[in-house]
């Protein structure tokens, strides 16, 4: 009874076939059902996330946060949802009605799509396609699309600016992200997430900490969360792409953002923190779900921590950071990892041994040290440049003697 999901699935299948449906149709129905359940589950968690978000930010800012409705204000998000639902739903004049309404749906749907490939447990996962990693990237790209549609369709220059920024940011941050995703793929010899999880007898985080870090950074940028939230920088472009959205449409964006964060955390834990791995997860698959969400929430917390600790970056700095720093670093990382892996493990899918872990880790440390040194040099130069002499306006001293003489 350690695997309720599959048990229920099997029972339903037998039931339906007993009712005289064709196996093919049954499969279709069950798949649809699974999708439905999955979506609902995630969305419910999403509602919870609102509460988490508000609570945690309150703690970070030394406040109490929602605490009136229900124990610890647990009912608060429900109230929020109701509020959003009863708000007036406006489509501004001159806006592109269809696109305008499609955008928020895209925004949330793409996030939901990601959950299709994340393995919850050895036996519980949506689809074990052998290109899951690419799939995640692809869906992330679709998310970008939603934001552009929103920004463009709402016929508002701030929204458009936000969309532009989003495009620039996402396109440039996808590059190091995709590159760095190769590291776990190389280590696991597969692009399937289940296979990646299976091969994480030691978490990849310990084999490739830098890769994990870069992935975290880039995915935060993909999220468009602080410090990378210039696409909705209140101080510059009011609210960015969702400035014109009201009521539940805005709610969808909001939920999408929160859920996206959790999704990214889940992906991160799957790729680098061993996914559902944990004690007895193999015997009792349902435990795997617990472990996965435990790790995911930890990462989610880290993301929030970053969000509420860092100031916003300037856009040129941000793009420069991606193109001039992350991309080269990730390239170096991938090449080094591949070479080391080829030398140590050959082409076959040999299991990961302890010395191998140590060597990969050492390689990462070396690269990190080199990076730090280079950065220090760069910073020194920059400081020199910035601290250089600046032209100062000077006024000619009036000749007081003459003034006195004129008296």
């Amino acid at each position: 009874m350690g695997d309720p999901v599959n048990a229920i699935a099997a029972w339903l299948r037998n039931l339906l076939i007993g009712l005289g449906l064709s196996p093919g149709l049954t499969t279709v129905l069950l798949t649809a059902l699974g999708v439905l359940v999955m979506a609902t589950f995630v969305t419910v968690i999403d509602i919870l996330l609102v509460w988490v978000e508000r609570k945690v930010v309150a703690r970070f800012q030394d406040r109490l946060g929602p605490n009136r409705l229900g124990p610890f204000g647990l009912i608060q998000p429900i109230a929020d949802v109701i509020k959003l639902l009863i708000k007036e739903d406006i489509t501004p004049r001159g806006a592109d009605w269809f696109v305008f309404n499609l955008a928020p749906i895209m925004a949330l749907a793409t996030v939901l799509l990601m959950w299709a490939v994340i393995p919850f447990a050895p036996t519980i996962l949506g689809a074990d396609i052998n290109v899951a990693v690419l799939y995640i990237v692809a869906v992330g790209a679709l998310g970008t699309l939603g934001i552009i549609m929103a920004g463009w369709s709402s016929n508002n220059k701030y929204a458009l600016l936000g969309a532009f920024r989003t495009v620039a940011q996402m396109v440039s941050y996808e590059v190091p992200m995709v590159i760095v995703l190769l590291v776990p793929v190389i280590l696991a010899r597969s692009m399937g997430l289940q296979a990646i999880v299976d091969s994480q007898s030691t978490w990849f985080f310990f084999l490739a900490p830098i890769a994990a870090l870069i992935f975290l950074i880039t995915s935060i940028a993909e999220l468009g969360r602080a410090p990378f939230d210039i696409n909705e920088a209140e101080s510059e472009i009011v609210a960015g792409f969702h400035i014109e959205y009201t009521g539940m449409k805005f709610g969808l964006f909001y939920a999408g953002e929160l859920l996206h964060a959790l999704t990214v955390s889940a992906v991160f834990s799957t790729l680098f923190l061993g996914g559902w791995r944990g004690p007895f997860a193999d015997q009792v698959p349902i435990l795997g779900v617990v472990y996965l969400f435990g790790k995911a929430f930890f990462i989610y917390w880290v993301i929030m921590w970053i969000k509420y600790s860092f100031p916003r970056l300037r856009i040129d700095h941000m793009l420069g950071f991606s193109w001039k720093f992350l991309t080269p670093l990730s390239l170096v990382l991938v090449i080094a990892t591949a070479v080391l892996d080829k030398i140590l493990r050959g082409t076959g899918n040999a299991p990961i041994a302890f010395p191998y872990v140590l060597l990969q880790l050492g390689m990462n440390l070396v690269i990190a040290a080199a990076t730090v040194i280079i950065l220090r040099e760069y910073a020194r130069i920059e400081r020199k440049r910035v601290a250089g002499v600046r032209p100062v306006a000077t006024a000619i001293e009036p000749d007081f003697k003459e003034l006195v003489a004129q008296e």
Partner: protein
Amino acid sequence: MSVIQLIFLITAVITLGAAIMVVAARNLVHAALWLILTLFGVAVMFGLLSAPFFAVVQVVIYIGAISILMIFAIMLTRRGLLDSGSQFNKGWWVAGLLSLLSFTALVWMLSTWEGFHTPLPELSRDTDFVAALGAQLVNPGGYVLPFEVASILLLAALIGAVVVAWEKKA
């Protein structure tokens, strides 16, 4: 009329309709969005052709990069978007004739080919095409040369794009 055929036909209809909208829509951003739908349909086609890798790559490259770039370009060149006046040049009917001609010619020629009705052969399940393709792409006996050429082409395109679109600071 099996399920798979149904799926194919639906996808084909949607895709072609979207494609027609791409060339017909006067609002370029709509055209771009229709294009995305078309590309998505093609991705589904790839899925039907049991090439999931290419389906995903289609989404990543075409939808994730190309079409978004296009939307970007459209927005950057918005003022010249000519929302007023025809979106088609004077020779549009010639174009229509030609495309019809090409379609008929292609279909006719293909139908005269004996392999036109090739049934679907069984795939050997155990082969992981992604891994095999990857191995082939870097295999000196395989496609490493075209692979390298393609990468050089991409590099050249990258640099060229930067150079061409560089805004000269006066």
